[in-house]
């Protein structure tokens, strides 16, 4: 029976897929431990060389040893990991690769530091899970992108950032049967700020919304002016900011309709961490306030559980 080479490669790929690789944090941990051992070995080598040189010099310059010789320095254990000398970094194609790091990097601190300190990484568990009745079954997609709608050129909360992760996820209302199209979607971000900068971020956001009551649309919403306004809010995290973005809806051909689309955006601060739920709708839906409130609470709970 004839086979195609591409089929054999598909079989190989399937077999490779059965093998699990370690979780990324474990891999980073191993890599950092190796880097530290290598740095320690390097320091030890320098100490041996310096010590040996100094001792040799004394022996030459004096008639006899004035001081008793120090303890012998153990040679590196052959069983310890052999540091792999970083080779010249490979060059993929014609693009220039980055030069190898020559100084040992500091290890990533634990992401659950004591109160007052800022975590330096954000694990998946910091992101809330939708209630089963709201799970649209589409999962989350992490990636780059803005965490707030455009606010007349302001960039609130972009200073003092330690780390940030952003995901997009769709939800359905509890009354919507499984298998139907989602009722809305979120751009959900978690940002860790340096100590004392998270409340600045929320203050900047309040100011940016106040200073941008109206904004002309661009791109797909060109010709449509949106209005922004702060809404009273409280009871979420240490403090929160809720605002709405309201603009005329458009039909499938882009023409304005009589009704409006309302988007809700809530930023909640928990210590040095700010999470933003920006409801983006789904095919022209407006943000359901009760759903956004419910998911905001879940978002805060997930962050508190992570930080505890």
């Amino acid at each position, binding site marked *: 029976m004839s086979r195609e080479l591409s089929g054999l490669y598909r079989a190989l790929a399937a*077999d490779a897929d059965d093998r699990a690789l370690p979780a990324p944090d474990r891999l980073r941990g*191993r*890599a950092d431990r190796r880097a530290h051992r290598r740095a320690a070995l390097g320091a030890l080598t320098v100490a041996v060389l310096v010590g040996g040189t100094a001792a040799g010099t004394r022996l030459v310059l004096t008639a006899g040893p004035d001081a008793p010789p120090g303890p012998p320095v153990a040679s590196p254990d052959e069983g310890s990991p052999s540091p792999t000398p970083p080779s010249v970094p490979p060059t*993929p194609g*014609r693009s220039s690769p980055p030069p190898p790091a020559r100084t040992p*990097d500091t290890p990533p601190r634990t992401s659950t530091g004591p109160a007052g300190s800022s975590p*330096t990484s954000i694990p998946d568990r910091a992101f809330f899970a939708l209630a089963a009745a709201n799970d649209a079954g589409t999962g989350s997609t992490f990636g780059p992108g803005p965490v707030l709608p455009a606010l007349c050129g302001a960039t609130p909360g972009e200073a003092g950032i330690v780390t940030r992760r952003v995901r997009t996820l769709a939800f359905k209302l509890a009354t919507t049967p499984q298998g139907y199209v989602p009722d809305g979607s979120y751009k959900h971000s978690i940002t860790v700020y340096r100590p004392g900068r998270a409340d600045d971020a929320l203050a900047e956001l309040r100011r940016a919304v106040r200073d941008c009551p109206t904004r002309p649309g661009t791109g797909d919403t060109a010709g449509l002016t949106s209005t922004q306004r702060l809404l009273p809010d409280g009871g979420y995290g240490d403090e929160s900011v809720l605002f709405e973005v309201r603009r005329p809806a458009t039909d499938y051909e882009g023409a304005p309709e009589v009704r409006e689309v309302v988007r809700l955006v809530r930023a909640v601060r928990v210590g040095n961490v700010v999470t933003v739920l920006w409801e983006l709708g789904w095919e022209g839906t407006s943000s359901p306030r009760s759903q956004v409130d419910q998911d905001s609470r879940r978002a805060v709970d997930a962050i508190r559980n992570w930080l505890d």
Partner: protein
Amino acid sequence: MRDANSFDDFYRSTSARTLRYGYAVADDLGEAQDLVQEAYARAWRQWGKLAAHPAPEAWLRLVISRLATDRWRRLRGWRLAASRSGPPADVGPPGEETVLLVGALRQLPARQRQALALHYLFDMPVAEIAREAGVPTGTVKSWLSRGRTRLAELLPGVVSEELEVNDVA
């Protein structure tokens, strides 16, 4: 400063296909796992700069290709580190087709294995493989052609997909 989150996202989104590539250029799946982990460990050490690299995945593949040609010397550190975390989980043996392919690939020069892997696993056109390998497209065509011819000799009954190499150029 290195951003652990962006590295983790990169690792999660690329590691499966990188392992496939490692398997196709190495001759053993266990070794491919070591190669891939070593490559990602190096990527993490340089992540501050590599994150801004235009093609970090291509960089990884090149590291893997180079490690594969000198794996025992370069992997010693990783193997020792990995051995401290216990043996890997049991997995089933590879399928018959994989065993045949890997056995044949062992008899091909490394550059041909790499070119074939990029072509069949990543569906890369010749020009892109040439860019990644830093060689003229004619060289890649030659590697692919010779590699497929040799595999056809080593794998009786395998259909030689004659037009692929030229079609994708």
